[in-house]
């Protein structure tokens, strides 16, 4: 099966700090890949590089844009932006960073549609209502401002606003970080069912082993910008080889 996203020999430095060093990976369609590691291990940098938000110092990201694998760096800014707006999605830890808080929930969901040429108010609104329901928010809140939403609802709104264009690949940066534990469980449940139903490929960054175990097919463990261990999620978590992975696994509090 051909890869949806491939990275080869990625390296990136922030001054003297090597955030990424020799990272290579491959992601297939409908596959959920979790990137775990301690703080400052380069997880988020990797996510930014893979999603084209950051150009790496070295190495290349290849993506399938419908006609075979192509280099992200040579795609050009308009094509990259279109890719990020339609076939890709990015879910941030803090939904306030990607949502417009002074625009209604419907407007937020509709923004990606309008950015890609939708010009029919009725249809945009219908799609927004449909997605609001899909993320389990009462459709009566369609015309409410996100600033009146709770943290969990904001995160669900961000998911709806991202998935409305039917992306095939979604990048998630700690999607449940900063949420209350019970809310976390509901969001995870929602993400899991949506991802399976829509057949999305996901690159998920998290430092929460529980989230990775629940969602991911495959796992990458990072430390100091390098991949130290990779494999199927259960395999890595049940039989961690690298000292860093063992530490991560053992640091989980028993439920």
């Amino acid at each position, binding site marked *: 099966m051909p890869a949806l996203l491939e990275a080869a020999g990625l390296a990136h430095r922030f001054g003297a700090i090597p955030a990424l060093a020799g990272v290579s990976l491959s992601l297939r369609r409908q596959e959920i890949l979790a990137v775990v590691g301690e703080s400052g291990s380069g997880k988020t940098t990797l996510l930014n590089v893979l999603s084209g938000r950051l150009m790496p110092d070295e190495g290349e990201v290849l993506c399938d844009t419908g006609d075979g694998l192509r280099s992200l760096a040579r795609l050009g800014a*308009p094509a990259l*932006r279109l890719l990020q707006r339609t076939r890709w999605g990015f879910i941030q830890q803090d939904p306030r960073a990607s949502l*417009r808080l002074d625009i209604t929930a419907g407007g937020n969901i509709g*923004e990606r549609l*309008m950015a890609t040429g939708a010009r029919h*108010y009725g249809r945009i*609104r219908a799609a927004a209502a449909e997605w609001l329901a899909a993320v389990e928010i009462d459709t009566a809140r369609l015309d409410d401002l996100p600033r009146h939403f709770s943290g969990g609802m904001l995160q669900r709104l961000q998911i709806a606003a991202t998935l409305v264009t039917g992306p095939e690949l979604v990048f998630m940066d700690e999607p449940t970080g900063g949420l209350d534990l019970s809310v976390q469980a509901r969001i995870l449940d929602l993400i899991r069912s949506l991802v399976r139903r829509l057949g999305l490929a996901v690159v998920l960054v998290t430092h929460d082993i529980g989230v990775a175990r629940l969602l991911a097919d495959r796992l990458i463990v990072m430390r100091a910008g390098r991949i130290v261990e990779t494999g199927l999620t259960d395999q890595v978590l049940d039989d961690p080889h690298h000292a860093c992975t063992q530490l991560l696994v053992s640091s989980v509090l028993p439920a």
Partner: protein
Amino acid sequence: MIGYNFAYLDEHTKRMIRRAILKAVAIPGHQVPFAGREMPLPYGWGTGGIQVTASVIGQDDVLKVIDQGADDTTNAVSIRRFFALTAGVRTTTSTEAASLIQTRHRIPETPLRAGQIIVFQVPMPEPLYRIEPSRAAARRRHALADYGAMHVKLYEDITRFGRVAVAYDHPVMVNHRYLMSPSPIPAFDNPKLHLSPALQLFGAGREKRIYALPPFTDVRSLDFEDHPFHPGRAPHACALCGATASYLDEILVDDRGSRRFVCSDTDYCETRRSGLLPSGAG
């Protein structure tokens, strides 16, 4: 006037502004930065428009200046006098007779003809500024023709008010490429921008930007397929000349709240009342 160059600005400045204007005409709707000068009037009173006018005006020009349609308000009178003094050009209040029109927030009712130049005073040239606070990011959106976010604002209006509630400065797409602020003209005037035979120049003094619409440029107001653009107008006839198709000002006439509606374009109204109906009268 002794001691001053023709039309106030020195020739180097005029050439610099003309270069910006040429660039703006070559790329309709694109904002060209220019080194705006301090002018002898405050920002917001037409410093951009007056510099553009000073750069294109010639000895044979006949100048008309309007402020919200009127030829007789402070801003219009003083800018007209300014050029009469510093350039010695003939001035007029007649749209027909003028070769150069500087305007604040209106387009005359009398259709403009080929050969005329209209100069708009622009307070905020960036149509994306409410959507995209970063000017660098806004320029990037212009470069990539990435204007979807502008429709979010229209979506919000329809959601809250049932219609697009932009009464003035309704954004337009120029030549199917650049999103442009038409300056705060009423939405009523937006259709006049489309395929106008006159050259339309826009000057923003505080923001130091010039943009332009060459004659016969395609200019479309943003809208939705199921909520088409609607140029608004008060549903009345002019109390003075009886016009039913002109843009009206609402005027309070006493302290009991009585009001009447009169043409905002004073030249159009006076011409109609003098019995010389201008072409396109309604």
